[in-house]
């Protein structure tokens, strides 16, 4: 080590010297000696390098006069001002990089040894040479060569940072022994010497030179990585758990401050005077105590001063008097009535029946007015649905359909009945002609003499026809009223004329028809009578569904035949039951559920049906024969079908008709019939053509390459060559593609099915174009989508779990970074009890710590 230091210092010195090398003038002889010393006389060429290299080494050995440091710089006695030395000097603790590596060091050492060896040889020769020259014993020179006295004048005072030359050269270095020597003999000496010996042996405590930086850092990194890995691997399970958890919860207990009203109220401090007063009363211990006891003492506490009492009393008295006055005033006002009030009141009194009773004249007048009204009604028949509106309603049947018109018409009829009713009350009074007539009419009807009745009616209508006068004065004289009257009269006249005609008819026919027409209208109940007849006709026929033989399976037919008798027995029984049921219904309760009062139209339509029954049956028999010639026709079945749907009336009684007409011709066998019916129908062929067409549309067939005239057929050779190879190849490729397309279709193997594979653009938005992020395979994605997660499809116990968001968190909760907690890697993700899980968290943490401590 000492050698190292010397070398470094020498090199430093050499640097410093390169500038200061201005020694004193030496005589030439000495210079020569020096040169000789520099280059030994007998040195070979090979040594040149070495010598030159050793120039520096030996430079320090020269006795050299060194110029004294200027006094300013030496700072002797600080007599001069401080002068900065601008010459660059390496710092004292400068270490050459080369020196630091151990290998280098070793190498250096060996080099030095060799060099020393060389030096020794050289020195030997040199001394011998000097001996021979000077004749002096070699010992005189030996010391000179071995110990090279060097004079150093130090620039700085000797100290810790500026060691002496001896120290630098490794000579006279202080060792432990030096320190120990003076202590020899003292009591602790043995111990310390032993300690030191031990220290020397103890190689551990030898401080080696630090490793080069990159190596050191590499090692450091290696060590750190191990540590970090260990530390981080602890977190892996936790992180994995969090990553894989379907839901992460952050709603750990949050302090929201006040939770109840009571908590808020307890904080209340009375501030205003009023509040303070209230508080003093509320917090009065006496009051609260009184409350707690039985409330009897409360009265005592509720003492009111005399002054207050009087004030209160006065106030109430004042209010009462005010109220009384107001009431009084309003009473008086109420009594006062206006002139018009009284006038109207009197009028009312007069008009009332009471007045009429009092005054015979008035009564008579009233009666006259009523009578006039009635006469008018009878004349004009204004309320007998003869109005334009009523007629229209009836003609369109709207009075049946809707309630409003129905009610209005009923009301009119009622009015008419009221007005035209015979008035018994009037009979005793001044007997008018009309009443007499009524009576006679009534009698007539009783006696049942239609001819006389008719005659009378005729007479009356004639009379009415004659006296259609127009009043000259009053409201009726106004032009529009007159017009209306005229119209009305005309209508009435017309009606009267019609009535006359009718009367004449009746007179001719003897009035028998009239009775019939009366009986037609009214309610009608559908009973068994109409219904039973139709089915009975067909009962005997073996027109059974299964009876018809089928060529396809004989077994079925045999079975059917076996069943036949059973069913035949069964069906009549069932029929009778239903019939009797309905009979009962009709007899017992005509308005029961099974009957429908659809009278108005029912009667008509039923009649029509029965009426046309005969003609229809003829028609139908014709029709049943028709299919045979039609069967040869191609469109046979279609025609038949359309005919069926068109003749609705016929269809209804179809069953009856076929059964009756069946006897007329032989039924051909089923297979024969089918063959005939579908003889010309090449339905399957048509379908195949259709399929081809659709396929062509969806997967277009490539066109065959054709020679276009004018292109490539200029010469015969070209024609002979035919279509170019390229075109053929292209066509082949297209064809292959087309075939592939056809093969991949869903309906490729189904001959009877065409499945359209057109893309529905509107439905495209219902599909995803790309897979959503974490998914990489279509299949997995579609499988994961198969289960609906809505509340309609899942039990309510699972819906919450199925739809829980990825992160559950209350608003305002601060999400803290993940804290370490021990997780068992074998534990599966458990999402069952989130709340428990959450509560357990802090507990787990503590347990983890304990575990950690234990492990350490």
């Amino acid at each position, binding site marked *: 080590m000492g050698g190292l230091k010397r070398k470094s210092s020498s090199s430093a010195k050499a640097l410093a010297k390169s500038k200061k090398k201005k020694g004193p003038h030496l005589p030439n002889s000495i210079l020569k000696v020096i040169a000789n010393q520099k280059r030994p006389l007998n040195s070979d060429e090979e040594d040149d390098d070495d010598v030159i290299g050793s120039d520096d080494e030996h430079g320090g050995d020269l006795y050299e006069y060194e110029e004294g440091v200027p006094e300013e710089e030496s700072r002797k006695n600080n007599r001069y001002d401080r002068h900065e030395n601008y010459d660059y000097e390496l710092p004292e603790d400068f270490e050459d990089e080369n020196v630091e590596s151990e290998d280098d060091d070793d190498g250096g050492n060996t080099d030095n040894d060799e060099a020393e060896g060389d030096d020794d040889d050289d020195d030997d020769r040199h001394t011998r040479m000097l001996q021979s020259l000077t004749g002096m014993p070699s010992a005189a020179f030996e010391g000179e060569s071995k110990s090279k006295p060097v004079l150093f004048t130090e620039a700085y005072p000797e100290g810790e940072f500026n060691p002496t030359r001896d120290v630098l050269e490794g000579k006279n270095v202080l060792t432990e022994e030096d320190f120990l020597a003076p202590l020899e003999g003292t009591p602790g000496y043995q111990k310390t010497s032993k300690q030191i010996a031990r220290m020397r042996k103890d190689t551990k405590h030898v401080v080696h030179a630090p490793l080069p930086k990159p190596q050191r850092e590499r090692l450091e990194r290696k060590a750190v990585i191990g540590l970090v890995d260990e530390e981080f691997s602890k977190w892996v399970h936790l992180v994995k758990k969090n990553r894989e958890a379907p839901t992460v919860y952050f709603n750990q207990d949050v302090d929201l401050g006040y939770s109840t009203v009571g908590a808020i109220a307890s904080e209340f401090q009375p501030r205003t005077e009023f509040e303070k007063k209230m508080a003093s009363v509320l917090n009065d211990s006496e009051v609260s105590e009184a409350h707690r006891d039985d409330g009897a003492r409360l009265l005592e506490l509720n003492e009111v001063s005399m002054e207050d009492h009087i004030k209160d009393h006065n106030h109430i008295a004042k209010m009462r008097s005010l109220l009384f006055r107001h009431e009084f005033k309003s009473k008086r006002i109420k009594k006062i009535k206006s002139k018009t009030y009284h006038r109207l009141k009197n009028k009312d009194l007069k008009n009332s029946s009471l007045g009429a009773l009092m005054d015979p004249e008035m009564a008579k007048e009233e009666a006259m007015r009523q009578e006039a009204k009635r006469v008018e009604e009878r004349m004009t028949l204004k309320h007998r649905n003869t109005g334009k509106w009523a007629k229209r309603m009836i003609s369109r049947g709207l009075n049946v359909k809707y309630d409003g018109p129905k009610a209005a018409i009923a009301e009119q009829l009622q009015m008419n009945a009221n007005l035209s009713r015979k008035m018994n009350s009037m009979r005793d009074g001044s007997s008018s002609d009309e009443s007499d007539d009524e009576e006679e009419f009534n009698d007539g009807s009783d006696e049942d003499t239609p001819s006389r009745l008719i005659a009378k009616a005729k007479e009356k209508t004639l009379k009415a026809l004659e006296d259609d006068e127009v009043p000259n004065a009053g409201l009726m004289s106004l032009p529009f009223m007159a017009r209306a009257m005229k119209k009305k009269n005309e209508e009435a006249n017309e009606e009267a004329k019609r009535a006359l005609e009718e009367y004449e008819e009746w007179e001719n026919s003897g009035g028998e028809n009239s009775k019939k027409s009366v009986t037609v209208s009214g309610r009608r109940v559908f009973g068994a009578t109409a219904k039973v007849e139709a089915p009975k006709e067909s009962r005997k026929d073996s027109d059974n569904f299964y009876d018809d033989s089928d060529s396809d*399976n004989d077994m*079925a037919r045999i079975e059917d035949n076996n069943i036949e008798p059973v069913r035949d027995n069964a069906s009549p029984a069932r029929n009778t039951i239903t019939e009797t049921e309905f009979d009962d219904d009709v007899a017992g309760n005509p308005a029961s559920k099974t009957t429908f009062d659809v009278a108005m139209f029912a009667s008509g339509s039923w009649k029509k049906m029965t009426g046309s029954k005969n003609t229809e049956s003829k028609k139908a028999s014709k029709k049943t024969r028709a299919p045979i010639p039609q069967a040869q026709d191609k469109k046979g079945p279609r025609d038949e079908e*359309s005919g069926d749907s068109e003749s609705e009336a016929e269809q209804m009684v179809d069953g009856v008709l076929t059964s009756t007409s069946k006897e007329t011709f032989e039924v051909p066998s089923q297979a024969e019939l089918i063959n005939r019916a579908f003889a010309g129908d090449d339905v399957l062929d048509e379908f195949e053509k259709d399929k081809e067409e659709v396929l062509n549309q969806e997967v277009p067939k490539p066109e065959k390459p054709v020679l276009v005239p004018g292109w490539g057929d200029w010469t015969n050779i070209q024609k002979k060559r035919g279509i170019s190879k390229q075109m053929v190849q292209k066509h082949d490729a297209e064809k292959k593609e087309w075939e592939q397309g056809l093969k991949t279709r869903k309906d490729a193997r189904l001959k009877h099915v065409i499945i359209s594979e057109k893309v529905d653009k509107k439905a495209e938005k*219902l599909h995803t174009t790309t897979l959503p992020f974490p998914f990489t395979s279509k299949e997995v994605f579609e*499988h994961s989508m198969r289960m609906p997660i809505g509340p309609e499809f899942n039990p309510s116990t699972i819906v919450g779990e199925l739809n829980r968001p990825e992160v559950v968190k209350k608003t305002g909760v601060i999400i803290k970074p993940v804290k370490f907690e021990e997780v068992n890697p074998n534990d599966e993700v458990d999402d069952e009890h989130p709340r428990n899980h959450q509560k357990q968290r802090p507990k787990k943490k503590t347990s983890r710590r304990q575990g950690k401590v234990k492990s350490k």
Partner: protein
Amino acid sequence: MEVALEDNNLMEKVLPPDEQEIDVELEAKEKKYLRGEGANLESLKDKKLKTQLASREKLYGKSAKAAAKIEKWLLPASAGYLETEGLEKTWRIKQTDIAKEVDLLSSRNQYDIVLPDFGPYKLDFTASGRHMLAGGRKGHLALVDMMNMNLIKEIHVRETVRDVAFLHNDQFFAAAQKKYSYIYARDGTELHCLKERGPVARLRFLKNHFLLASVNKIGQLHYQDVTYGDMVASIRTGKGRTDVMEVNPYNGVVALGHSGGTVTMWKPTSQAPLVQMQCHPGPVSAVAFHPNGHLMATSGKERKVKIWDLRKFEEVQTIHGFHAKTLSFSQKGLLAAGTGSFVQVLGDSSGGGHSRYMSHPMVKGYQVEKVMFRPYEDVLGIGHSMGWSSVLIPGSGEPNFDSWVANPFETSKQRREKEVHLLLDKLPPETIMLDPSKIGAMRPSRRKEKPTRGEIEAEKEVAIEAAKSVEMKKKTKGRNKPSKRTKKKKELVENAKKTFPELEEKNIAGKKRRIGEDAAAELPTSLKRFARKN
């Protein structure tokens, strides 16, 4: 000893037989509620997704289990059935025999209502089965409360009525009349006259979509939204006149039966039929759909009834020997067929196809016009030429109703609430498709897609390889020089390369140009002339 131990363990594990049975039952139900199997998660690389999906799948399993348990324990009513002993056959049992056995309330459902005047009756029930609408051919419309057999309203429109249909509840119904179809309120008030459709032959209402579908005399199919009255679609079927129309309750697809023996299926957003099936050689007389949407029954005039699987579009079963004028599936999958004056009910009891279950002969001469099962009751309504009848078919109706879906005992308040919910849940017309479970899935790839770069490169390599391996013909002396052969080969390879245009370079060139243009465009006009021109 070991064996004995195991045996002991086994003994512990084995449950009592009835519990085992329950387990099996529950498992079957669970499977139903799981709606298919989960994806294979093993193939997933994303661990996070894998565990998330696994936990999801677990939740689904839990949900299915809970649902199965609820169904097991909270839906106590069991479906009806008809059991025979020895040589007895179920189809020989008559209604009179049944009437003796059933309770009073059920026996009330056996009745005939004779209304001979207004011709064959069409029937329709509300979804809950509470109300029935009967439409007589000659204009008699009757709305009946089936619970208390109360005639709510009866009107006479005095013209032909071809079909009737309830709208979303008993408050409104539509009738296809002679010239137009009309919408009436419950009290018989005419609300709308639907003139746009022309003379309608059949009317059906799509409950989830609020569409009134109709097919008219000239074979046009119309869809009208009844919420705002817009005509959503009018489609010309081009197959001629038809009066066979039915809605698939599962997906809302409308099926029409045609005279050529084809059944076509339609949706409002496409003018072409979704599916065309050649079902019969002769005209199709009736079509019916199973409530789960997988089965379709068709009847041809050649006296055959066929049952089809709609998932595969294949025939499942052919029933020979009769043709049906009208067909109807019950909620439990019984199939009723009516012809002439005879009604036949087919059941799928053993799972091996539909076979005869019950039959009901009407009075001779009654022509069955329409059969329809009453929802949530073991009752079959039969509309015929002389009124309508109701017979008991044990095991036809769903025994447990879901009051959120259809409640026969609905109060007016509930009805109003429901109406609002229904409107909120209304589906747009484009959701009608053959497989509605595909909604939300990936869009089916188009037939023609641009090949990816990788594919192009692969193809190119293949082409080059092919060009290289082409064997040269041996040619005459002068032309067969090796130099010429190599030249030729090079040419071939070059040609093979040429067929694949180099996309990249083009793109780059395009980009460059674009950049230059942009720069020019961005500059103010005064400086534009200084922009570099490429």
